[in-house]
């Protein structure tokens, strides 16, 4: 492929736009774009699991929330500063996801989905019950701002940049990964597990590694989210976030490494659009209106572009290349 120079150019444009936004746009755009980065980064790992590795794990909000809780609690109690807490959270989630993944990943398809969904509910309820440690159902309060040594992140713009550094870091990592021997191995066992094993790929071990990797990514994003809101509650790591992530993966398309981030962008801004246009006369129904709109969009996407937006764009690119000369070599 001649993609490398074109890809570098796209990366450059993306990074430039991300850096420029706070200088040209107001605080409203900056705060929506921060959430695009946070939930987009989270959806990237979810898309990798669901669509590329074929592992129907629904526990992604759990890793996000656990990372947030661990780093938040450590910071509230003054045990570890936020940056160190983020690392501790990631290590903690890595260990837990290993212990849980090792037995659970023997399950496939819907059975894995059921088991991981059970995990999601159990962790959500447990966080609500551990009153003194987690603040119970009222939530964890008094979380300090994110800081590294003397540098304290205070404004929305600071968190905007932190979120995007993490999100683009995840995007870059997954881009490299999926274009390597490991990425090909991950896609191969989704296509034919028998053939993958016969090529020397240790399928159960790789599944576990992908599971841990995406859990650790989710955990770090969860920590940033917690320090941004300076608040954490059990319902954040529950069912609504799961639905939101799946929506992003379906709309953006999980077969490409960047699709879920695109999905996050579309979902976040569509929601703002819906609220701006309908919020005036349906003020109490916003969640239901959201659900209705996204339900319709998911159906339309699944019928007309089953690969999501990114799959559709890839297909256009492929057709364009075939029609207008052989740029493919």
């Amino acid at each position: 492929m001649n993609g490398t120079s074109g890809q570098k150019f796209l990366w450059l444009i993306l990074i430039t736009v991300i850096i420029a936004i706070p200088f040209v746009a107001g605080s409203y755009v900056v705060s929506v774009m921060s959430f695009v980065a946070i939930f987009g980064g989270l959806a990237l790992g979810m898309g990798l699991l669901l669509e590329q590795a074929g592992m129907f794990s629904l526990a992604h909000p759990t890793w996000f929330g656990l990372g947030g809780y661990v780093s938040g609690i450590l910071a509230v109690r003054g045990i570890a500063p936020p940056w160190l807490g983020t690392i501790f959270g990631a290590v903690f989630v890595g260990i837990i996801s290993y212990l849980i993944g090792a037995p659970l990943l023997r399950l496939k398809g819907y059975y894995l989905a059921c088991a991981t969904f059970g995990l999601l509910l159990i962790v959500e309820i447990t966080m609500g019950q551990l009153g003194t440690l987690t603040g119970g159902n009222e939530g964890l309060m008094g979380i300090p701002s994110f800081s590294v040594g003397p540098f304290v992140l205070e404004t929305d713009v600071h968190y905007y940049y932190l979120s995007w550094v993490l999100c683009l870091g995840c995007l870059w990592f997954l881009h490299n990964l999926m274009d390597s021997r490991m990425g090909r191995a991950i896609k191969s066992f989704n296509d034919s597990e028998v053939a993958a094993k016969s090529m020397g790929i240790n399928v159960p071990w790789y599944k576990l590694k992908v599971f841990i990797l995406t859990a650790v990514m989710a955990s770090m994003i969860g920590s940033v989210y917690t320090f941004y809101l300076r608040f954490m509650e059990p319902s954040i790591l529950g069912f609504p976030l799961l639905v939101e992530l799946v929506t992003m993966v379906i709309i953006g398309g999980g077969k490409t490494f960047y699709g879920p981030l695109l999905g996050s962008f579309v979902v976040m801004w569509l929601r703002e659009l819906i609220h701006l246009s309908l919020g005036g006369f349906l003020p109490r129904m916003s969640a239901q209106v959201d659900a209705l709109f996204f339900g319709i969009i998911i159906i339309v996407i699944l019928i007309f572009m089953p690969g999501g937006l990114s799959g559709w764009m890839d297909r256009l690119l492929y057709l364009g290349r075939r029609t207008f000369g052989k740029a493919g070599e």
Partner: protein
Amino acid sequence: MNDILLDVSGLSKHFGGILALNQVSFSLKKGSVTSLIGPNGAGKTTFINVVTGIHAPDSGEIHYQGEDLVGMEAHLVASKGIGRTFQLVELFGSLSVLENTMVGCHTNSRASMLSCGFALPAARKEERRIRDEAMASLMLVGLEKRAFDPISKLPLGERKLVGVARALSMKPKFLMLDEPVGGLAAHEIKNLVELIHQLVSKGLTILVVEHNMPFIMFLSEKVIVLNEGAKIAEGAPQEVRTNEKVIKAYLGEEV
């Protein structure tokens, strides 16, 4: 003794009430081409699956270069230099032709998940080496022009050749081809025969499961015939062809 690559003895495997392999024993010489034939359901593919560790045998022994393969997991068997193709091709549909072939290089590459993700220099260097090796495998089967096509654009014959290229990327010492010529055009079959001879002259040992009789007669030094899971004949192609048990198995008994 030292020129024996694979030695199986008393190999049995049943699925439910069906005995797919029944006390099969034979050995393969290094650098030889052997054909495994038999009517449908004779246990040919089961044999490959048992040797490669996809299925565990009920009883029997498999010695490969003096090492016991029974109970070894499939990915470890592959890392010993045992490559295979599949009757139903089993290519990776989400990868291009070249990428499929690159997966074959998995056993002779090392880069970890983290070094791949962070694109460390060692991983990138290895990636270039894998790409070159896979391209070389594609050239062996004559598909280098198809390298960047998705698998779905290829006809069945070319897909089978991608399967062969993918197995060759493993740099195997022992290669099992499961019905490689079904769907291939005449000139492709001729090229495949040439390729097999060329590989064998370099010391590769090959076991071919096939139905195409002229291909087998022309290709193999030895033919092994399975029927209902049991070995009923073994010998040079001409001997086997005139063997009465073999004729009965293929044509049925007279009533």
